[in-house]
């Protein structure tokens, strides 16, 4: 019960903080719309037909990932700057539980990105929003978002130890877009990148969403994205404990 209260109050608090951040407004709505527009024009002028919904979904998921990534790095860095990271570490609940609701709120904010690109695509480019399996889409969307949030939790744990979290955030945005095949198929990437794609929740998440929208098997990718989400929880509890211990032992927790 106490854990649920921590999750709920942390989720609400972070959602309120994100709502006042212009940077998150940019990452979760403006940036995905710009990328979606670039993709729409590229697909429109290219040889592939009927791919605008594909582009809208991909650009939206890119926004979900960006929000999760910058949120995960930002929440640790921001707390470090504010001097509240030590208070979180010193509190009785495990650090992973303290930051779990923050990560979920980050990913939830990312859903604005998907909504923004779909509405933008419909209004400006006339993208038809006819989903083959609408109910499965509604199931796949929260599953994907929660799973990405949990992946963000693993990243956040490394940022406890690593002082330049925002540099890592800047670096990891495009590689995950590429390896997850969010807006183009991973079949055009070199073969050695496949195993990297398979361990990324966004790869399975976009497959589940794409198949729900455009047709194809949804349950397999959905099971994979949920499985990776659960694995992320387990990994993050260990990594949080380990990195927290290391940063306390090295006395680097509060160093900016």
């Amino acid at each position: 019960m106490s854990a649920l209260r921590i999750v709920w109050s942390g989720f609400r608090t972070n959602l309120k903080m994100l709502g006042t951040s212009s940077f998150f407004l940019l990452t979760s709505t403006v940036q995905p719309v710009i990328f979606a527009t670039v993709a729409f024009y590229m697909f429109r002028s290219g040889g592939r037909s009927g791919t605008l919904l594909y582009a809208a979904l991909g650009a939206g998921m890119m926004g979900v990932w960006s929000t999760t990534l910058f949120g995960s790095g930002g929440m640790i860095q921001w707390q470090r700057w504010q001097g509240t990271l030590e208070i979180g570490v010193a509190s009785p609940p495990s650090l992973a539980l303290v930051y779990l609701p923050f990560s979920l709120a980050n990913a939830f904010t990312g859903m604005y990105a998907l909504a923004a690109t779909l509405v933008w695509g419909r209004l400006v480019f006339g993208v038809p929003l006819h989903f083959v399996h609408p109910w499965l889409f509604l199931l796949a969307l929260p599953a994907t978002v929660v799973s990405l949030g949990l992946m963000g939790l693993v990243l956040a744990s490394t940022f406890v130890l690593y002082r330049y979290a925002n540099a890592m955030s800047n670096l990891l945005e495009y590689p995950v877009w590429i390896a997850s095949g969010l807006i183009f198929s991973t079949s055009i990437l070199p073969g050695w990148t496949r195993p990297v794609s398979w361990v990324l929740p966004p790869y399975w998440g976009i497959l589940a969403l794409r198949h729900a929208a455009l047709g194809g098997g949804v349950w397999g990718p959905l099971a994979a994205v949920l499985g990776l989400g659960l694995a992320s929880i387990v990994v993050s509890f260990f990594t949080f404990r380990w990195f927290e211990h290391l940063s306390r032992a090295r006395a680097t927790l509060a160093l900016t």
Partner: protein
Amino acid sequence: MRRWWSTFFVGGVIAYRGLFNWIRPAMYIPTMLGSPLFQLIFFTKLGQYAQAESRDFYIVGNSVQVCAMSSVYGMTMAVANERWFGTLGPLLASPANRAAVFLGRGVPVLANGILVSAFTFGAGALLLGFRPGLGTLPALAAVVVVTVASCTAFGMLLGSIGLRAKDFFFAANLAYFLMLLFCGVNIPLADLPGWMGAVGRCLPLTHGIAAAREVAAGATLGHVSGLVLTEAGIALAYAAAGLLLFRILERESRRSAVLDAY
């Protein structure tokens, strides 16, 4: 005059070292080299998948545009961080020539922008098979220098706004992403609606990227001189607008006593 040049060069370098947040290798390498590299791969692969333009179209467009990582963010920080770090008051209280103070900050940013672009072109050659003729490299380098200068001048304007605006990083981020859309980086201007093309032609990068593409395809510098001169003109216009805005905002901030307020 000697003092002017000293403020211009030495002041510019000191300001850059003090105010550019990403100068440490742990920040610089992932942000200024890693991110442009993956941006290049992302858009080249997206173009390949969409079957839109040739591979070189995306390599040249993105390799030139990534200079904005330095020009827009670097220049914004080099001016606007004065207020963030609480050093704006002492700076403006000094009798130093404002043009030297302001324009000198662009020199390290310009050098860094050229480095970032050169690195990305190199990555394009190494990883994606970009093969311009050896004879085209001097002309390509000249086009890149003019384009980075133009983008740096645009960064000066944004930095000036940061002297007064609270959230200058929002403007810098927005400008960076809008350049991807409006400047013909990944979409030919002809494929954009007329008003977007018109906006793009008033921005830095657009003419420089067009010139760089022609040079990479074998054209001489003489053939693209019109585009290069237009890009240089845009650079001068933005630098003048940035300096003018800097002076106006300085005067207004003094008058309304909000120099260090945010």
